[in-house]
């Protein structure tokens, strides 16, 4: 990651606060355009700004996140799981697990939510161009990888071999199934899907095994390759050694950290890990940068 990239700070959504400075905590209104139920407890949503002008002027970088408000309930932090190459909407993906996500789960197409962002840093795309990319994701952590997968596929010429390894506990827990199938059909992508032992169905054609095990089996080359890994802490913990064994340098392994956040602006203190604020300095870190942090993620 270049220093410039690491130090980059995004401007806030522009609001006129009336008297002087803008109110950095104020959300913009977005309309839920389309909802897809991905698994029994995961949904993804296509969102557009209510204000057309705002939609036209909005831009973000792949890998950034936002604060999403269900009015009257609260705010949650999600990665923007669409690519910066898509201009007409953004997407988010969430598991129904807490108060806000349960309320969001109940919402319908056409309803309005709040959005603040984009916040945080982004994938170092310039560094990734001209390289092979190895995407590794586990379970609900596909969304923060998927945005970069689409980014790479939309600018396919700029990247060399693209390999995707995606695992979930069960077949039912795989998210973005239509896209997995779409990627499977492409001849310019290698995709391996796997489910944990016992999570398979009779007609499951993918692999059976945990992500680190399958990674060892697939044994992708580390030559001129950047690995992008997102998943539950336990998966990361066991995947990292396999990548290092494979010859990947820590500088060439990227991940998106998922600490609890509230403000997204480096103020509220929640995502402070060591001297780093995940919301401001991250969420994207190299494994080398993560190794310097206290283990509080």
């Amino acid at each position: 990651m270049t220093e410039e990239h690491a130090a980059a700070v995004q401007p806030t959504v522009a609001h006129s606060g009336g008297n002087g400075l803008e109110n950095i905590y104020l959300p913009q209104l977005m309309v839920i355009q389309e909802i897809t139920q991905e698994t029994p407890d995961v949904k993804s949503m296509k969102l557009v700004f209510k204000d057309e002008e705002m939609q036209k002027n909005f831009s973000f970088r792949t890998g950034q996140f936002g604060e999403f408000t269900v009015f009257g309930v609260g705010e949650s932090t999600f990665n923007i799981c669409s690519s910066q190459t898509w201009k007409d909407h953004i997407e988010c993906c969430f598991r129904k697990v807490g108060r806000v996500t349960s309320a969001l789960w109940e919402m319908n197409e056409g309803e309005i939510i709040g959005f603040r962002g984009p916040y945080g840093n982004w994938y170092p795309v310039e560094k990734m161009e001209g390289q092979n990319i190895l995407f590794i994701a586990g379970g609900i952590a596909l969304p923060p990888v998927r945005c970069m997968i689409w980014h790479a596929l939309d600018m396919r010429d700029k990247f060399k071999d693209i390999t995707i390894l995606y695992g979930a506990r069960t077949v039912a827990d795989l998210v973005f199934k239509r896209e997995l199938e779409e990627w499977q059909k492409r001849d310019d992508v290698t995709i391996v899907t796997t489910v944990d032992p016992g999570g398979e169905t009779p007609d499951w054609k993918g692999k059976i095994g945990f992500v680190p095990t399958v990674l060892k089996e697939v044994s992708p080359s580390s030559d001129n390759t950047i690995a992008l890994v997102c998943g539950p802490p336990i998966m990361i913990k066991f995947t990292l050694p396999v990548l290092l064994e494979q010859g990947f340098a820590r500088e060439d392994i990227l991940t998106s950290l998922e600490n609890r956040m509230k403000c997204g602006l480096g103020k509220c203190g929640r995502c402070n890990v060591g001297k780093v604020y995940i919301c401001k300095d991250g969420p994207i870190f190299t494994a080398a940068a993560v190794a310097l942090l206290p283990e509080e993620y």
Partner: protein
Amino acid sequence: MTGDSKEKQNAEQVEKTRQPILKTLRVENLNDLVRKGLDLGYRVFAPVKDDRLVTFEQISSPEEAFLDGITSRTSPKSVLFPRTERIFSYKIRKDEIVVEDNADISQPTMIFGCRPCDAASFPIMDRLFQWDYQDRFWIERRKGMVIIAVSCLDCDDACFCTSVGLAPDSTEGSDILLTLVSRDQYLAEVMTEKGEDFAEKTGLFDEAGADLDKETATKAVREKLGKKFDLDKIKPWLDENYEHEFWAEVTRMCIGCGICTYVCPTCHCFDLVDEAHYDGGAKIKNWDACQFAAFTVHASGHNPRPDQISRHRQRIMHKYKYYPDNLGAVLCTGCGRCVRHCPMEVNLIRILKGISDMEKAGVGEE
């Protein structure tokens, strides 16, 4: 919406200090000073004694202010950063949500009678609220605020301002610092343009003669305070000892009540919650604390700081290492409130003394 970087914004400081202008204020005019502030339309906040507690409250007459205590129980941070505050509200209509950014934050405000440690907390916190993203709630209130602090002539065992580079008569953060230099006279150090402007408007200050000196007045308390640990030794030890048995030892008694963060003039962590009514609601910013388990727990249930040891270490690391690393100042003014009010007698002075002793011993061995 994306575009230019905002690095330049850190350049602007709310506070502009310069060589102090020395004036005097007669003790008998102190009440008039507050009254003038009220007459000029300032909201005035001062320590107020209610039964046994001294807290920082808005006052409507000078007689309410209580200046005899060492420090008030609560700090004046709540004037800029209220315990709970509506940061915008919204109406939910049939097919539409109307967001109203209606916070009223620009009233002129006077903080009267706080101690130098509390005055010093404001420029330290300015750094955070101006860090890349500008928090208007803090910054705009701060611009309209004049701070008139009063030097300490006494201290207690919990005070340790002199150990963090401050003093019972330090001027950091004050627009005007008053030091009682004789029975009937305060020396007034006018530190800022804001202070000068205010002093002029009141017409209560006189030019000071060259014979006035606050050093004599505060000498006794300064000696009583002494130095309780060596600040220079703290960060080097923290840099190296995230993992150390010392943490478990010194935080064992901590029950995670969070009072240290509540009374602290520089603890600033907060939560954002929605409060809903039948046809609308509001976004509320509430104080929060790194001492609570729920502060960091992930949606999955995983908690990166799962025990009180790691949470207490976070508070000390944040104040004495992370904040200096990021923003160039120790996030502590030595007011001693956390020491004074901890129900379990977890003592920050003892912890920092332990750290500075270990660092000294370590260096000696090399």
